[in-house]
């Protein structure tokens, strides 16, 4: 009798719908409206690389120690330097970071003794070409610059 009642009044069906309805509460909504709304990125997020510069004198913090290049599992960092004859220090000339091969493991960041190389919270690194994925020193310091097309 009870079974018939449940079947006649679609009780099971309504119970299922109630579960679905309950889950429509706004606190259960996790969808990110990405282009319209920026997602919340964690502080430690390992995203686009950045080569930090000293804000006071606009000089790079990098001391050209090459440790990041040694630590990288994919060997995608190339550091170039000149020996400064006056100060006897290494001066950074080139810094190439191939983001197309990077797996964002963070080992380069850990290896850096002066916190010059950093993986930032920026995650928008798409480019139209493969060459655009290879970041040079200027891109690493200033962020990726958009390709300028002829009008």
């Amino acid at each position, binding site marked *: 009798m009870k079974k018939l009642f449940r079947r006649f009044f679609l009780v099971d069906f309504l119970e299922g719908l109630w579960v679905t309805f309950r889950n429509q509460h706004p606190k259960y909504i996790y969808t990110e409206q990405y282009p319209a709304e920026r997602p919340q990125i964690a502080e430690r997020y390992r995203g686009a690389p950045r080569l930090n510069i000293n804000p006071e004198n606009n000089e790079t913090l990098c001391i050209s120690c090459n440790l990041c290049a040694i630590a990288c599992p994919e060997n995608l960092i190339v550091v170039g330097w000149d020996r400064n004859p006056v100060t006897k220090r290494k001066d950074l000339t080139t810094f190439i970071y191939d983001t197309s091969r990077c*797996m*964002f493991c*963070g080992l380069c960041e850990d290896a850096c003794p002066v916190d010059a190389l950093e993986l930032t919270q920026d995650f928008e690194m798409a480019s139209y070409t493969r060459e655009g994925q290879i970041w040079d020193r200027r891109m690493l310091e200033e962020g990726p610059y958009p390709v300028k097309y002829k009008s």
Partner: protein
Amino acid sequence: MSAVETFLDSNELVLNMGPQHPSTHGVLRIILKLDGEKVNGTECVIGYLHRGVEKIAEARTYQMFAPYVDRMDYISAVSNGLGYCLAVEKLGGIEAPPRAQAVRVILTELNRIASHLFWLGTHALDIGAITPLFYTLREREEVLKIFENYCGARLTTHAFRIGGLQYELYEGFEEQVRKFCDDLPGKIDEYEELLTGNRIWVERLTGVGILNAEDCKRYGVSGPMIRAAGVPADLRKLQPYCGYEQYDFDVPTRVNGDCFDRYVVRMAEMRQSVRIIQQAAANVPTGPVMAKVPKVFKPAIGEAYVSIEAPKGELGYFIVSDGTLNPYRLRVRPPSLVNLQSLDAMCKGTLVADVVAIIGTIDIVLGEVDR
């Protein structure tokens, strides 16, 4: 195979399932030998996702290889990392500090929950219940947020380093974990309401893909599959690692070893994981998170095998060192690959539609099968 009785019986249909089939959870190709709807035999063709991880290890230093293991079982990257780190630590005679061990337990158990949630969603989707997928992925998002806050990546985490942890716990970690642990049992109740009490679900899975305890041992099957057959084999209990002996938890088992039992075991395991996390998070010891590991890490000549209880089963790493910077040989014993071997035994005599359910309950990740 039975003798040919009628004209129709003689026609054995060979059907390729995959590698693009969505229910094979990746790029698994199964050659089905069909007699009408009945499956006479299966043959797995694997290797579509082969990346040669074991070979890559031979050209990398020990620290450098750690992010690669995350890419094997990408659903439970933290467990993979734990197994690798424990193996290298055993090889080098290092022990992680107690604080690091507690955090490792919390994160791996969170990862086990995430893996089982993802399994539940996709498996239910295979069977035809679409709603649990949305709910389970919603809960998994919470776990991924904890991972993102802790180590900066959501999927391929690279959370652990050899000798401990790279990152200290972030502010609010404990609250976030506690809130997740408090909420999850209620959510699991909701899934059980949707599935365990669902007649379609129960009848679809009961008695399908039976693998008894004897066969499980013969095939070397591990994890929830062998526990569903009634063998309480859990490496966290049998050979505790990483301080699991301090925590009080049960090993859920069932008797029949069919698809429904595997489902029930995984649901119960999630509840046990919550228990472990609550105990571990209640008293995380203070102290350093990283043991003393030399920057140029050269273990002595020797070999080490460490196996841990990954969400899918026994995950083992065998490392041979020849005293240089790189491992001489690294061998992974992936649970998914070994569990997949039992597919043929389970599928014989069942119907085609059940093959999907059986593959689902093995819980394979093709990144780990092919490596």
